[in-house]
């Protein structure tokens, strides 16, 4: 191989393997292209600010003099920033080194000489694809005012406003919705164009020689045709001859049809896409959530658990295969997706980060098979997240343990125990049940002992929980992981201990405030 080629390919490999280069490129990618990156929005805001400044200066220039500093800022600073942005985006579009390496390795495999020219051609094609994209063309036009000597080109500043498309998501959504009806819009466009063309020509032929008519040129006829067809009808240009008015009737009737058809197209496009748009928005919102409970399965138990957790202020995401149940979850005001919780791709699509976002995964399907499948999928992603699962058949208990479920809820056993307890001591049992579900506002609560509390109240006798009509059931000692039932008044407390209190929730809240006050 030619020495130049050898050196070149060596350099390409070195660059491709360089961590610093990869890191640099990734950083720029995050700031310019990665919508999930939390600091990208600052770059977006900065660019939007520049766009508006530029347009504001253009408007100001129309009737007043703009200071030279501001002009300089507009002509050079903003343009240079936009130029840098353009170059960076061009650079980020596909990896040049990868294209060359792929070509090189392909040639080597086929035992032929490395075709450098062919590789460079592919690079050019790839970059050109980017250059000719609409957003890239707008970027390019927005830089043009840099050459401010060409006065005519100043108007290109207006192209900067189109750059907003890149930074506002709603415009992108709007465009994507309309794109879904491309064929219909094209058909309508052709139909409308034909009518405009035919009517313009007809009116021109019939009115151009009439001295009373405003239609003097073909452009006048075209203008009249558009104004009439759009049902705007300014009335500055009107046909005066009988034949011209016949054409007007024809254009007016077609105009009504075209407008009605256009409106219905917009409406139907949005109606069809609205669910999809909402889903995309919900997926994007997930990245902002923390301490999520991932509820897998939205049958009766899944539903009630999700609603109860939601009412206590937790973040819930529901994954359910059956679209009927998903609709139900959406009606219940939850974030729900018709995704299979047993598939790895679900978590990739939703971009869920188990380490930082998920508090627990709840496998609440009515089938043990589904719950084990989901558990194994989640476990293949992370070993650390807490998984709680319901168990239907006792025979599967071991399988759940093996799959990696942290807490197995076998309600049949609980029901058995409840039955036994109920027979023995119905009143005591009812009481505990009432305390659990906090009927009449009375329930059991945990209070975490912190440093402020300890500063003011060293032991239990100084807390005076009787004043608040509360019962101190016990203290959970964090250091020894022991529960001290009915503790003595002189029990010493430490930071991290938990007080287990029974009483009215309102008084419990008051008690908490009291514990944080000096001499309370």
């Amino acid at each position: 191989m030619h020495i130049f080629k050898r050196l070149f390919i060596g350099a390409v490999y070195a660059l491709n393997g360089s961590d610093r280069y990869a890191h640099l490129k990734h950083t720029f990618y995050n700031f310019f292209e990665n919508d999930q990156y939390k600091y990208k929005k600052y770059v977006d805001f900065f660019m939007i600010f520049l766009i508006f400044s530029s347009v504001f200066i253009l408007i100001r220039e129309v009737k007043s003099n703009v200071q030279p500093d501001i002009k300089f800022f507009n002509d050079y600073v903003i343009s240079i920033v936009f130029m840098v942005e353009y170059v960076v985006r061009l650079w980020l579009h596909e990896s040049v080194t990868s294209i060359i390496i792929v070509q090189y390795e392909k040639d080597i495999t086929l035992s032929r000489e490395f075709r450098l020219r062919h590789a460079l051609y592919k690079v050019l094609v790839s970059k050109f694809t980017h250059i000719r994209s609409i957003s890239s063309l707008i970027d390019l036009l927005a830089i043009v005012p840099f050459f401010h000597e060409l006065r005519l080109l100043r108007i290109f500043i207006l192209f900067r406003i189109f750059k907003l498309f890149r930074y506002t998501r709603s415009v992108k959504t709007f465009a994507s919705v309309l794109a879904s009806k491309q064929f219909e819009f094209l058909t309508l466009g052709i139909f409308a164009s034909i009518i405009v063309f035919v009517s313009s020509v007809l009116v021109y032929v019939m009115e151009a020689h009439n001295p009373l008519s405003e239609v003097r040129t073909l452009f006048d006829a075209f203008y009249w045709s558009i104004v009439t067809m759009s049902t705007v009808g300014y009335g500055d240009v009107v046909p005066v001859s009988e034949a011209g008015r016949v054409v007007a009737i024809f254009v007016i009737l077609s105009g009504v049809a075209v407008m009605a058809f256009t409106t219905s197209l917009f409406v139907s496009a949005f109606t069809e896409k609205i669910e999809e748009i909402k889903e995309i928005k919900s997926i994007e919102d997930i990245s902002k959530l923390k301490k999520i409970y991932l509820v897998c399965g939205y049958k009766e138990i899944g539903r009630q658990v999700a609603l109860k957790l939601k009412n206590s202020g937790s973040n819930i995401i529901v994954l359910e295969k059956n679209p009927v149940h998903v609709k139900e979850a959406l009606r219940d005001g939850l974030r729900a997706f018709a995704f299979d919780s047993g598939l790895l791709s679900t978590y990739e699509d939703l971009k869920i980060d188990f380490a930082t976002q998920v508090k627990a995964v709840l496998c609440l399907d009515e089938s043990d098979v589904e719950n084990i499948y989901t558990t194994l999928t989640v476990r293949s992603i992370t070993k650390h997240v807490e998984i709680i699962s319901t168990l239907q058949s006792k025979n599967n208990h071991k399988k759940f343990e093996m799959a990696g479920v942290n807490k197995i809820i076998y309600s049949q056993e609980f029901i058995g125990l409840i039955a036994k307890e109920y027979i023995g001591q119905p009143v005591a049992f009812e009481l505990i049940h009432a305390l659990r579900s906090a009927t009449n506002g009375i329930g059991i609560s945990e209070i975490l002992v912190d440093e402020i509390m300890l500063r003011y109240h060293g032991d239990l006798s100084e807390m005076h929980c009787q004043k608040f009509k509360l019962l101190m059931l016990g203290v959970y000692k964090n250091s020894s992981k022991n529960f001290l039932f009915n503790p003595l008044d002189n029990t010493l407390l430490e930071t991290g201990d938990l007080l287990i209190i029974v009483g009215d929730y309102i008084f419990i809240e008051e008690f908490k405030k009291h514990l944080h006050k000096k001499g309370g």
Partner: protein
Amino acid sequence: MKSAVIFGYNEFALEIAQSLKTKYSDITLFVLQDEDKKLLQDRGFKVAKFDLLDEWSTFETEYDLDKLIVFCALEESSQNIFLTISLRATFEKLLIIALSTDQESGRKLKMAGANKIIPITQTTVNIITEILERPLVTEILNTILFAENELKIAQWSIPKNAEFIGENIEDVDWKYKYGLIILAVIRANLDTSFIYTKKANHEPLKEGDILVIVGFKYDIEVFKSRYRGKTL
């Protein structure tokens, strides 16, 4: 002899049978199908076959109705409700506990005459949410209720000879004298729900009031034997 009858062949029925073993010497599972009967017999259970249209009058000859407890745990809600109402129609005083899958069937079972409803879904939901939101409280409550350990909950009817009759509940030194916590009291003359200890201060204790006590097994035993009071 205390007897228990459990209707249904499912994991709930089997778990109830399992946990009642320590308290009831005579437990019979009633099933609808012959093959279920055979399967349960092979597993060592006492089994009988029944039909929803059976007349239940023979029950009286087989069981002492005052010492009998019935669990309706059929899978089909409609069948469970029909069974409950059939039993109640025949026996006015029979203690019937029914399992319900949802709130609606729970209400119907109550109307059909069940003394106590155990809501399956609701119970499971509570267990899951409590584990997530208040793990420590859940553990403590489960220990007090279910685990075979020292800490227990008990209910106790105040006998004639209790020295604290006439005193306010707050004035008795339950903690240092008896080592107990009184969670609630049920007034003898009022057939209503419990009054929490801290709200029950305005009326002195009297004979027949029921106290709901939490304490160590030993302390509870000592306390009860002291007055030779009877548990309910």
